């Protein structure tokens, strides 16, 4: 069970959180987006083996969403950063890209 550092509440157990899936997915302009673009926004997600950027909710705590970079193999948490912040550089991760 992971221990997650909530940006507000500090270290808590995984069972207080909810994973909202991949983060940094821009919502296309609904009026301008083609069907394919809209479908990609809805359904196409990365499934990396290694670092992954996700959004998480501290559901049983402060109720805040935040971003988290997590290694999907080791479950190591590489970064926790605000919802509106850009993707951080993950320098110490082999092959990790911004």
């Amino acid at each position, binding site marked *: *069970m992971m221990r997650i550092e909530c940006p507000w509440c500090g270290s808590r157990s995984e069972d207080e959180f909810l994973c909202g899936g991949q983060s940094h997915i821009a919502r296309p302009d609904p009026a301008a987006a083609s069907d394919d673009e809209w479908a990609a926004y809805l359904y196409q997600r990365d499934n990396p083996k290694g670092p992954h950027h996700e959004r998480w909710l501290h559901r049983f705590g402060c109720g805040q969403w935040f971003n988290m970079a997590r290694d999907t193999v080791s479950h190591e948490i590489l970064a926790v950063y605000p919802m509106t912040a850009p993707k951080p550089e993950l320098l110490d991760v082999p092959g990790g890209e911004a």
Partner: protein
Amino acid sequence: MKRTRQRLPHARVDTGKPLTFRFEGETYRGFSGDTLASALLANGVSIVGRSFKLHRPRGVFAAGREDANALVQLEHGAWSEPNARATLVPLYDGLVAEGQNAWPAPGWDLLAALGLLKKVLPAGFYYKTFIWPNWKYWEGLVRRLAGLGRAPTAPDPQYYFKQTVHAEVVIVGAGRSGLEAAVAAAQDPGCRVLLLDEQEEPGGSLLASPDPVDRAWLASTLERIAQCPNVTLVPRCSVNGYYDHDVLAALQRVCSHLGPHAESTAPREIFWRVCAGRVVLATGALERPLVFPHNDRPGIMLAGAVREYTHRYGLTLGERIVFFTNNDSAWHTALELAEHGVRVAAIVDVRPRVAPELLRQATAAGIVDRLGYSVVHTRGRRALRQLVIRRLTEGGHGLQGPRDILDCDLLAMSGGWSPTLHLYSQSGGKLDWRDEDSCFVPGAGSQAVTVVGRANGDFPQPLHTQAYWLTPGVAPDCQWVDFQYDVTAADIQLAARENYVSVEHVKRYTTNGMAIDQGKTSNVNGLGILALATGRSIPEVGTTRFRPPYHPATIGAWAGIELGALYQPFQRLPAHACHVALGAQMADMGGWQRPEYYPQAGESEQQAIAREVLAVRNAVGLLDYSPLGKLEVHGPDAREFLNRVYVNNLATLKPGAARYGLMLNERGIVVDDGVVVCLAEDHFLLHTTSGGASAVHRALEEWLQCEWVALRVLVSNVTTQWATFMLSGPGARAVLAQLPCDIQCSRDDFAHMQFRTGTLCGVPARILRASFTGELSFEISVPAACGESLWEVLMAAGASHSITPFGIEALMVLRTEKGFLHIGSDTDGNTMPQDLGWGDAIGKNPGDFIGRRSLALEAGQDPQRLQFTGLALEDETGTTVSGAHVLSEDGNSSAGYVTSACFSPTLGRTVALGIVAGARARLGETVSVYYEGKTQPARLVAPCQLDPEGARLQADAAAPQPVRQPGTPRSAVPQPATPQPATPQPAASQHIPQVLAARGPLAGDSGIATPGFRLREATGVELLRLQVFHRGEGQVEALASALHTALPGPGIAHPQGARTWLWCAPGDWLVTVPAGTGATELAALRAAAGELLAVAAAVTDSRVMFSLGGARVREVLARGTTLDLHQQYFEHQRCAVTRFASVPVLLLAEGDEMLLFACRSLAAYLSAWFRAVSRDC
């Protein structure tokens, strides 16, 4: 009673404390400090059970967790435990056990005849043999012949719970290395050291040592550790799993070792969740058996086990002991035994050469040595009698020379040592093969874990192990690898021949290490045999990844107290007691305990529901509607936000008006519906489906926090703050009119889909005129504390109108008659608004809303989409059920299904709703409804099958619209129901109290007071909530400045005069103020908030406050939360919002007390939870 063997004088058993026990019906004697295994050995019981498949006799073979042979059924009845390892069961007085998988008895098992079939029962025989006719045909027979113990059929008479423990250093194993690690870690006084040991007493392999120096070291180290306040040593606590982020799972045997008759309030076992800063694994090493012909005979044991039985339990297990080994450790054991007067006859070693010093010492002790020899056969039916040995060829690939016979009564074998790396492997650590010791040692790690001592391959003396995986030149099918599961070397070779390459596949095909053994003794030998058979090295073969649990865990411990009523959290309605008093049939609905219906004497469920439905149609009914979701949305951008959230256009919704709205997810799927109320230009009240409030709230917050961050909006969930009742029926207005209320309820003053706030019976009230029944309805909300009182008042006021309480079942009939949608019943995961006839409404919302773009995708345009419709069965006496399929035109496939169906007492026939392909264009068509092999014709009709004009909404006590009574023919025009709706009787209003009584959520619950733990409902304070739009620039600072206080940050409770501020979330505080000052304080907060986007509200009614105390309060709390509650971290005036007993709570440390704030509706659940979990305090 039989005579028991004399114990050696240095044994650790207490011969002054004899105990009697029964095994297989015989009474025996043992001593305090014995295990069941040592006591059986002391009494000369050589056969304890039978193997899983072939029923071969099995005796005690090891001394610890690795023994998968001596399995017993411990005790009888509800307490009984199957597959208990005799080596792990400490003896207690009166213990009763029986052998397993034997008939009639382990010593004389007729099923052993199966052994004759060994040749036709190789690995995988299941898959090859039981093909005809199918496995199910054979399963019953196989289960009877092969197996383990029996699970008890009655509920466990004892209980279990779970707890979370935090420590900076967690050490697993209290042997020499673990104790040394604990002493070292204890140097830092701020470091909490947790030392978990699985044995009955700490010491690990030191307990098997006869050396006085070892024993003195153990005693003094334990003494030293006992004096370290920061070290907690827990015996009988097996760590079973190593999970992510250094979280361990452990199982503590609290009183299970005392047997079923122990008088204790303690739980049988406790499930520990251990959160570690770093972990030290001092888990020791397990000795491996050697693989040779007939190595599974009782009387053949691990050499280390012989050592432990001799020195720890003081048993002389043989008069002529022979050792068989491939490493030096057995030589040391043999010499040590000889030193203590135990006769060792010989040492057979597969190695052609050993250290001359060992040879010299052996000769001096009178021990015969046979170097370069292997055992090729063992003899003795019930006990070991003889060994046949033969010389190995140079290189060890064959046998040569004559057979030699050694008489012996015990064979002590050692095939080398495997560091116990199960937990290390679970942590993600890699295992490296070390050739010189023929074992895996820790490789690269991935968590904060270190491995020490023998677990790390640091053996006290060099082993000089020579790999020896099976005996060459003799049949492999009698050389056992997994004793308990009857896996032989031949089985593994067969798997290799059948082209199984992966070790994971071989394991599953042969079942090697699959059951009780879990690879502890069989894993490495199996790998060695597979490597030989496939011409690879062991590192090339690789090993299986170990998975939790390390040792079988009791399912009861995983369940904890989450059983029966506490299986999951339940929420109670404010008027719960009233429903119970009325005899309501309660059911769990969306986490709420709600009345389904209120049966009267002699009434069936259907009769009760029909009576309630007709009462609403003909007179007036009362429904507890409190779970109806209620969210408040504040802010200058609230209207814009809601326009993006709802399909409808809300731009025109005026204050005081209400509109039904539909909510989609981004995929365009309908997820919720409800009435939206405009309270003010910047203030809205959203009603969601019952039980859906949390999910909708979460979705709204996600949009606001992640996408529309600039929108100035605050959302709060006020569902449990209000008790809501639905007064529905032609008499509704007349009943309401009797209550003192400043809201005008006349037809002209209060139209349909309007909302009013005011004062009802002296308390704040909100009334919505909407209708989910098709009748004139008022949905009345008052503060939750007054809910029970309002129910009583409405029942009293309605008495003269024959007011009838009705439950969810009647509500569902009423709304199905009207064709009102129920999200989740009448919609599925594909339903879009156009399927519900909302195509036109979508057009009216000029802007974008969640999911709108998805409606235009190709799938949304398909004319054959499943669309919402009514279904009228052609046979008016027919019935159908939800889930029945509507057939396609060719009758070969499904073209939709019935989503709601019930008997309508109003119409005297079944009414049904469904979603059917292209239904909206097919109105009037006849379709076939299929259910359980029968089809019946039905017409597609408009969903609303009663009063489509909505005339009944205007029905009033003065102009009743009678409907029929049950049992009357449909053609007969029904007469008005009795009693006649009447004008209010003036006398009735005399019973109406002018002011509603406020009641606490735990009225009548006296709390808990045990020596170690106290719980009571806290009173004396009122609660306010202050929210500010924290994403807005400078809003929090401006608010703090206006309030002349520093607003506390995360985790802090900040006193300010009589107020205490508790941080709940960014821009969100709970404020406690003395009772009686709530109104003034609220006004003060509102004044301070001024023009800021901030909302202050009184929330006392929506919360329950528990005051918790007693010496063990933090211990009890640790059974419900994973939060670190140590005084050092959670000190006075710390607070935390956390998950507790599966529900959200706010915890506050207040001196020696702890305060727990939770949703009022959860008060009864939490009270019951605390009662269950504090039984041992």
